[in-house]
């Protein structure tokens, strides 16, 4: 193993990549587009835009004035909540994104404040979904309405305080479920198609034949390819995370387990790619074979929707697909931190990746028959 040769190869792959605009598009733009598309489709599930839920436990003159002020903005469609239900309960049960609670004694507090500026503020409570960008907009509008009320009452002293209570829902939002799936899928497709495409193209052009007449060894060549695929996979992962975090409030755990699963995914699918090109020499057939491997896996391993939605026999089938374990593992690593799932998935995909990659290395030959 000669490090200089491995690096020389890696540099060639990176130069080829950075100078080919269509590859850049497919490797980076495709996963980003998927994220944007599905992010927008599902980010507002369960939250009706423009609705402000208010629970008025006070019922006094000032609380009615406040509700009137919110109604008067024209931005909000104000819905009053039954005062007999606890606000937390209502928030959790009704899948809403913002609930303003006017506590009992709110009007009295304002009277007191008017009489004696040193007395405590009248406090409002807002329960909201802190991961939803749409809710953030609502909060700022609520804030400006309250500011307006404050100015009207005094001019300088705050009569009304706000207690913001961000809610972390137990149910994962769709984006939490979706982002690790998209990462797994793009790592799979870039490793699989990257390996298949590179091998068939270089073989067809006769570059592999030329390389066979140099001291470059098979192991050095495969290692540099794997390093290149890892680089590409990390690049698309960074893009997906940037979109998810920047636009859809994704807050994943970024840890060593995440990288382990990405690495194992590269090994597994680069290995499958090597095996495909070992047996299917013609470029178009090899692409078709790679598609035949990828598509069922994309839809059956829980990339786009939860497996529980599928019939039992398909759920059983999914457990035989390597991508299922990458999906499960990445979700556990990035979202739920369920260590038993992390361990189990890592063992399965690790074993699979090792076997496939070793087979790929053993069966790939420089020599022609």
């Amino acid at each position, binding site marked *: 193993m000669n490090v200089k040769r491995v690096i*020389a190869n890696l540099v060639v792959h990176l130069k*080829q990549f950075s100078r*080919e605009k269509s590859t850049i598009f497919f490797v980076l733009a495709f996963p980003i587009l998927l994220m944007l598309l599905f992010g927008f489709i599902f980010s507002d599930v369960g939250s009706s835009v423009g609705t402000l839920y208010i629970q008025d436990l006070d019922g006094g003159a000032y609380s009615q004035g406040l509700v009137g002020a919110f109604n008067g903005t024209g931005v909000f469609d104000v819905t009053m909540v039954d005062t007999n239900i606890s606000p937390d309960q209502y928030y959790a049960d009704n899948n809403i994104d913002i609930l303003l609670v006017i506590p009992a004694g709110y009007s009295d507090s304002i009277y007191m404040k008017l009489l004696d500026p040193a007395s405590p503020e009248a406090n409002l409570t807002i329960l909201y979904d802190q991961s939803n960008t749409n809710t953030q907009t609502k909060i700022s509008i609520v804030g400006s309405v309250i500011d307006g009320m404050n100015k009207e009452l005094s001019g300088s002293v705050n009569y009304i305080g706000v207690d913001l209570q961000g809610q972390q829902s137990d149910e994962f939002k769709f984006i939490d479920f979706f982002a690790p799936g998209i990462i797994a899928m793009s790592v799979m497709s870039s490793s699989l198609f990257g390996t298949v495409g590179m091998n068939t193209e270089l073989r067809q*052009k006769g*570059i592999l034949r*030329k390389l066979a007449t*140099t001291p470059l060894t098979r192991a050095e060549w495969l290692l540099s390819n794997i390093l290149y695929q890892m680089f590409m996979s990390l690049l698309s992962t960074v893009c997906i995370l940037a979109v998810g975090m920047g636009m859809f409030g994704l807050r994943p755990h970024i840890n060593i387990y995440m990288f382990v699963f990405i690495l194992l995914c590269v090994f597994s699918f680069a290995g499958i790619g090597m095996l495909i090109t070992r047996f299917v020499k013609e470029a178009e057939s090899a692409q078709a074979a790679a598609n035949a491997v990828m598509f069922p896996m994309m839809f059956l391993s829980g990339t786009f929707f939860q497996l529980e939605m599928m019939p039992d026999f398909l759920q059983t089938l999914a457990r035989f697909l390597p991508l299922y374990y990458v999906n499960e593992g990445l979700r556990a690593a990035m979202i739920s931190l369920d260590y038993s799932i992390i361990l189990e998935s890592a063992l399965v995909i690790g074993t699979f990746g090792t076997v496939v990659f070793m087979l790929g290395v053993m069966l790939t030959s420089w020599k022609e028959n």
Partner: protein
Amino acid sequence: MADDVISVKDLVKVYDDVRAVDGITFAVEKGEVFAFLGPNGAGKTTTVEIIETIRDATSGEVSILGMDVKKNRTEILKRIGVLPQEFSSFDRLTVEETLKYYAALFCTDCDINKLIDLVNLEEHRKKLYINLSGGLKQRVGIAVSLVNDPEIIFLDEPTTGLDPRARHDVWEVIKGLKKEGKTIFLTTHYMEEAEVLADYIAIISKGKIIAYGTTTELIDKHFKTVKVTIKGGTEGVGSLAEKMGMPTQGRDNGNITIEASGNEQIVEFLNALKANNISYLSMDIRKPNLEELFLVLTGEALIDKRVTQ
């Protein structure tokens, strides 16, 4: 022989049921340009790839620089340079980067500038490979085959698919290598290429070597006659020649080709023409070429003219 850098003995390669290489034996001496001449599918590339260690033989012995190709692959590869058939390289590397990459694979500090100079690519060194013409690509390929300063250079059909101008440019590069004393193993299906470049020629057909020697040796051995072509001759040229016992062929457009046994017979014939008051526009005397030799030996043309060129 002590000076043999390549020695091939009873080499056989069988693909499924086809004997692509059918028991061939030959040797190449140090410093010579050896041409392997034959039509497409004759077994040239199979043979050369077995010598280059990238293909396994079915049987036979091949040694290169005194080493067995089956046992010393790594060592052999360090000391030979290869331009494979239909050479191609990474599209989006420049000429310079391509040479540096291959030099890095050999881990040698080769003088890239000297190589670029040798194949005359100075003005193209910053261009991407994909933007080069066919002839320039081949010259990059030849430069790449030289990065490890090899003792033997294998050029597998270096000018196939090139236009005549580009072909001559590549020939100039190969002549330059020859001057430097490199041993060159050339495979080609162009007779002219072998005639221009080679010291020694082996003609291969259907997996067998059917003739072996220098161009002159081959022609002299197989053709005892000289060809005389009379252009624009008046009536009676053909019948006169036949009367004198010389076979004639190709009577078209007023041209006629006559086979003479040697210079004496030509002089005799010219005198007879004069005596019979037969005039002609021009006359051309030549030995048969490799193309005709191939036709004589195999009964088939070296190049299928309907397909190539």
